[in-house]
């Protein structure tokens, strides 16, 4: 398979913008970023040993497991089952790397979504896992993603999935199923393997092991929430983006067993402040918010982030194993059940936040408001009102991928936690 930029002197498209060169020492810098993020995770005492498996999966993302061409995907909208059913392997390209971001700024303006800049830079400069993606699937979830697809099409073959702004399954499901069918056709044209009923069923059943294992881990965590840190859960989730689903599921079962064993040994600390994390994705390795929250003595017990547990939450519920029935089930799972604030109605997201606060006994909600992302910014504003009415403490952290503002973030988070502790004392 050829990449658009590989043919020397013959631009794949008439409007080709510019060549993006990886910055000098990008690979080393990228590794340093990852190592420092991992070091922050490892600094916590008494982590379960099974997490090493996930660290290895995450850092081996440059060479994901499996055969077949690598299909780069963005967002939780792209059904990995369809990609796998046509003999390709999905590689999640969403990145929070500032190295990729600065590479992206060779072409993209600086005042657009930082994630779009980083994702673009990673693919255009072929950094990390993005370096091996032969084709990239970009759902048009937000304005930045809509443009991102076109920007990327100058460098790599891009398949865009058009996401309707309304996720009412009654009116939009047929449209979304047609988009998935189109994706399946385009991908099978690349691999030469048709999207048959039997192959799709295999892929769905194989992937289901992931959801099952994750639900077991969550049940264990609910009983022993103090054993596994929120950042470690995010590590588990981030590793799922590229790892082989069966291998990942086995590792998660092992982790669940270890959490169970450790939970029985260790008493639950009373001082910790359990929080629910919501808002824009916290993409590896830009995990300073986790580091700040956990460094300040609080813990992220649950989240609604598409970069963390959200993608592992809902199973594909197939009612009829006919091919249209399976495509419908995939559409329902990846579209109807999606909590992305790009949709017109975000009540589902609000409900989930309130439900998680109750289920996990959280003392407050922290929202990651990604700078320059209007969707998460406006969602945070609405959530603030809703949570205030219910007297649930809420903090929106407006930040970017880099670590320049880490001290400001720390001050805000610490003040927020102090407020919660003060409230606790008074009660």
């Amino acid at each position, binding site marked *: 398979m050829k990449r658009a930029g590989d043919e020397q002197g013959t631009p794949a498209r008439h409007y080709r913008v510019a060549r993006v060169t990886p910055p000098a020492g990008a690979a080393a810098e990228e590794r340093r970023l990852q190592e420092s993020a991992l070091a922050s995770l490892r600094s916590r005492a008494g982590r379960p040993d099974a997490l090493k498996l996930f660290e290895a999966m995450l850092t081996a993302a440059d060479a994901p497991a499996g055969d077949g061409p690598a299909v780069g995907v963005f967002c939780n909208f792209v059904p990995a089952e369809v990609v796998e059913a046509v003999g390709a392997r999905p590689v999640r390209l969403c990145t929070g790397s500032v190295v990729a971001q600065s590479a992206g700024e060779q072409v993209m303006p600086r005042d657009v979504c930082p994630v779009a800049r980083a994702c673009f830079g990673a693919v255009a400069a072929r950094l990390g896992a993005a370096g091996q993606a032969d084709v990239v699937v970009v759902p048009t979830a937000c304005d930045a993603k809509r443009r991102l697809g076109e920007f990327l099409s100058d460098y790599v073959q891009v398949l865009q999935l058009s996401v309707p702004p309304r996720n009412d399954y009654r009116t939009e499901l047929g449209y979304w199923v047609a988009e998935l069918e189109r994706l399946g056709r385009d991908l099978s044209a690349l691999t030469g393997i048709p999207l048959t009923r039997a192959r799709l069923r295999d892929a769905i*059943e194989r992937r289901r092991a992931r959801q099952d294992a994750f639900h077991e881990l969550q049940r264990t965590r609910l009983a022993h929430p103090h054993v596994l840190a929120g950042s470690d859960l995010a590590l588990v989730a981030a590793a799922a983006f590229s790892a082989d689903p069966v291998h990942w599921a086995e590792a998660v079962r092992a982790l669940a067993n270890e959490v169970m064993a450790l939970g029985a040994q260790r008493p639950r600390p009373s001082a910790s402040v359990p929080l629910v994390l919501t808002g824009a994705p916290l993409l590896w390795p830009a995990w300073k918010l986790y580091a700040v929250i956990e460094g300040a003595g609080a813990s992220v017990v649950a989240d609604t982030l598409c970069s963390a547990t959200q993608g592992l939450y809902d199973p594909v519920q197939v009612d009829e194993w006919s091919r249209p029935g399976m495509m419908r089930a995939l559409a329902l799972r990846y579209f109807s059940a999606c909590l992305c604030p790009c949709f017109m109605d975000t009540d589902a997201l609000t409900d989930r936040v309130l439900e998680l606060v109750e289920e996990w006994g959280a003392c407050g909600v922290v929202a990651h408001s990604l700078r320059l992302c209007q969707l998460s910014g406006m969602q945070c504003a609405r959530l603030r009102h809703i949570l205030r009415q219910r007297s649930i403490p809420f903090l929106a952290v407006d930040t970017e991928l880099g670590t320049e503002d880490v001290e400001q973030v720390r001050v805000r988070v610490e003040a927020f936690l102090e407020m919660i502790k003060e409230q606790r004392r008074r009660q």
Partner: protein
Amino acid sequence: MKRPIGSARRVVQGLAFCLLIYGGYVLKGAPAGSLLPRLSAPQGSYSANSLPQKAIAWAPGDEPAFNFYPPGAACRFNPGGGLFKACSVHLLSENLTWRTPLKYLSVYVLVFVVLAFFLGRSWCGWVCPLGTMGDVLNGLRRMLRIDHVHFSSPFRKALRISSYGLLVPTVAVSALIGLPSFASYQCYLFLPYCQVCPARLLCPLFGGRTSTLADFTNGISSFLSVASWLVLGLFVAAFFVGRRIWCHLCPIGLVNSWFNRGSPLELRKDQRKCNRCAACADACPMGLEHVTISKDKDVLNEAGCVLCLRCVDACPRDACLSVTFCGKEFLRSKYREARS
């Protein structure tokens, strides 16, 4: 995917089918059979000779084991008289035509209303032998991996209006021919819906009786025979391609649907736990969407719902959907692992 409620329902449906169709042979003469008043006089006058369509005539030995009309479409034409007397449409038709004294009729109606009130339309989803036969056709389609046809909400509404279009004339005609001045039409118009009902063709067949299948002795009976086959064809096609789309048209189901709201058997939803995945809507054999889209109601009993509870099986969220009887929860949705 595991569907424990679905498996239980299949067992109940199988048992109910056998009881309704063959129970008449087994339980005839059971002491409980004489608890309710037994009407003897009127039906005797509708011998095979006085009706143009012999298919709906009583055959000797057609006495049911239990002399009442349950909401679960017990067909009067079941072999050996069946376990129960007949369905609700039959109850209305024959008693209006016969002008059954109120002291008898009120007992029949009361028994029916109590049974329908407590279990709502779950009679359709769990007991009705027509529904069971339809589910077999539906299962055949699923085994062949053919996708079902989804009918739009306006179409389903049109079917519901049509079911009134079947029930209201049936009742009106039955009442009218009960009047002395129209009594001469009784021989043509007795049990008007039964003359085309698929149960009247199918239920006797399971007992090996073929006399109800066709009657070409005269023009009227030939016309009605052909008409009933066409309806049967529609019935088979509807169940084969459209899951339970037929049940939106069924007048027996319509009568049951009046008891669905306000029944102590309730389908409930915890709104906050819902992830809007619409797996419930995808699994609904009636093609209903209200379980997914309802945002402010806790109780989801709706006229069209046959309470088959496939939605509760399909829901992947712990305790999002639940079923209560008199406020006591006895079933709830839960995440089910594919293996184990």
